[in-house]
């Protein structure tokens, strides 16, 4: 899974069978420092609660569809959770060398 920031919503008018009512959000992927990386992608939202501005983590690939119900749907990225806190380990005392 990777971190991303929700930057918008997508409202499709016609979707493949099984995807009716599944929220689609525009997600900007982030690198490990929290900076934007690459171009935004469209992800289904398995929490059904994420919205623009929120920090989320999302799964890609085959596992993305497994997060949805029904699960046998054509989806390649799905938001799994909304991040409350995410801590980077900054303290050198915790950081073993090599």
């Amino acid at each position, binding site marked *: *899974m*990777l971190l991303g920031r929700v930057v918008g919503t997508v409202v499709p008018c016609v979707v493949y069978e099984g995807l009716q009512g599944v929220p689609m959000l525009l997600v900007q992927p982030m690198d490990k420092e929290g900076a934007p990386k690459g171009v935004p992608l469209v992800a289904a939202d398995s929490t059904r609660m994420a919205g623009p501005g929120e920090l989320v983590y999302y799964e890609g*690939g085959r*596992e993305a569809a497994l997060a949805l119900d029904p699960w046998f749907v054509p989806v390649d990225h799905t938001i799994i*959770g909304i991040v*409350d806190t995410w801590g980077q380990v900054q303290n050198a005392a915790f950081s073993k060398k090599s």
Partner: protein
Amino acid sequence: MILGRVIGSITSTINHPFYDAKKLLVVERIDAAGAPLADYVIAIDTVGAGAGERVLVLDEGNGARQVVGSTDAPVRSVIVGIVDDVTTA
């Protein structure tokens, strides 16, 4: 599997039901010498890894679901080991 180092953790209250009470760690990829690479992954911890530790991450769906004991969980990345030493020829 990939070599990584734990650089952070994630907490969330709103998540997919499978992820309730699961420990999520942010793992950066490292090379054999321990130098960080640009990639990272968020993985479920199954071995009790902690901050700064070198770990082994399984990044494949079927194996990961076997590790977490489910046939339909939306899981691809799990931490399956803590690395003591890496030797290159």
